[in-house]
């Protein structure tokens, strides 16, 4: 069992095919609260600050993180935030997004109801290929 565990650790330690796989990770909290993850090779070709300036990220708070600081899933990637050095899901932002989707859905249904057509019919008339063929004809 120990051998299997050791082998597993070894395999997981080299998940990347590229030989130059030594990277540092930084979490950058942007103005809108979203998080951009910088994955940059150790001893980068230019100073980190210069790279951040090139990417127009130098003005935002930056924090060095480790892989262990990340969530196990990427499912809620667009709602990440940095909290106490860890990457966590901003539940409030996620809920706002869910609400926004629901609101949008409700609006759409209201329009469909007014038009007295189904969603399938709506999709058909807004399909880009249908529009393209129509414009050609």
């Amino acid at each position, binding site marked *: 069992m120990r051998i299997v565990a050791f082998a597993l650790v070894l395999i997981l330690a080299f*998940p*990347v*095919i*590229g030989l130059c*796989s030594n*990277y540092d*990770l930084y979490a*950058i909290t942007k103005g809108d609260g*979203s998080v*951009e*993850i*910088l*994955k*940059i*090779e150790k001893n*980068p*070709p*230019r100073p980190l600050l210069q*790279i951040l300036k*090139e*990417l127009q*990220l130098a003005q935002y708070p930056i924090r060095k993180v480790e*892989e262990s600081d*990340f*969530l*196990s*899933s*990427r499912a809620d*990637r*667009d709602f990440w935030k940095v909290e106490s050095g860890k990457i966590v899901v901003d539940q409030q932002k996620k809920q706002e997004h869910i609400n926004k989707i629901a609101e949008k859905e409700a609006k759409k249904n209201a329009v469909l109801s007014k038009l007295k057509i189904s969603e399938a019919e709506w999709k058909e008339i807004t399909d*880009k290929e249908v529009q393209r063929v129509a414009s050609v004809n």
Partner: protein
Amino acid sequence: MRFKLFLLILILSCASTAFAGTISFDQLAISSDLTATKYNGDLNKVYQKVNTNIQGDNVANDTLLEANMSDEINPRVRTAEGAACAFVYSGLIPASAAGTLTSNISSGVGYPGGYRINKSSATAHTYTASRWTYVYLGWDGDFDFSEKNIGISADPTPSDHLLLARVSTDETQVLNVEDLRTTTCSDGPFENIVDVSGEASLEDLTTNGIWGRRFSMAGRTPKGIALGANISWDGVTSFKVTAGSLYINGFYRSVSTDITVPTTVASPTTGTSGIDAGGIGASTLYYVYAVADQSNVKTFSISYSSNATTPTNATNFRLLGIIRTDATSLFCSDDIVTAHTISEKEIPSAWCVLNSTPTVPEIHSSFNISGITDRGTGEVTFILRSPMNSTDYVVVGNADAGTEGHLKIKKTGYTFFSVDQVISTSGAGNDGYFYVMAIGDNRK
């Protein structure tokens, strides 16, 4: 009387081999008397042939040793004259002459094809007016002359001949003599230079095979050494061929500084670079050639031609590459190709295979990618290790998220480019594999 007759018979019988070739006698008839006149005459024949006029026919093969020969015609130690190759040991140079088309080729010693030829006295020759006459010494000891119109380079030197000079005449006189003799073997030739007996010679190493790539947009790369000599855009009215060394149709040539190539007509025999004939054309693809037609120099010149195989007025040349002109007959910086080397424009400046599915995206394989930023679902920025020289570069790629997808290039900078993976027609981003490549000017 008997004694004399016996002596004559003895001489004639012993000289049976001497009868072959050059000595013959009228045989005595029975009715003839052996007179003193005939006796003395026949002896005199033997005396003259043996002592002053013996010929090769009278010598049996392999009977004379090399040591028996005079050093003057057959030096026992040829290396005393440095004869390790076909070369001129001394003299053998034509002279210029004012007011006449006749001049002397000086006496001297040469080794055409390894044969030692000693021209013990000067040889006069009358040259044809208004010609370039290439003068050779053959292994048979004769001078040979090859006449060309002025400005035309020499044909390849015939086997077992030594090229001595190029004699230039006008209507009335021998104007100029260009010394083309090989006067030393200490610097080569390359076919004689080997590391160990039986190993490939330096000539083998520098002529066999194609240096760099075999094929390019310019055509097939010629064989032989090609170092440097890259075609470089230098402006709209000229281009450059960088310093380099080339094997050109049997000649080894090298230039230490860049050659600026104008739009004026080239003169290969005087080392002048330019277009091979006529004026520069609009929207024309030109083939650029290195030419080794100037005598007695180590450099090459450049001729460019719309002809893909043979430039006009050039004899010894090799293809270097191509360059184009635009509609106004100006040189374009794009589509410059050097046949034997690959330019930065022809290869990717950076590429990456990235999997954005894991929590932290994985760089599977890459070139010139220092890192990435994960900006959100299906949104990645690639950071170049070695920046581009301008933003005029191209990013292409494809996406794979298990369904139809493509990449949207958001923006480019000198040091990075950003892409979003877009799935289907919904416009929604998604995580998955990114396969991206950037091509542009990344010279350093």
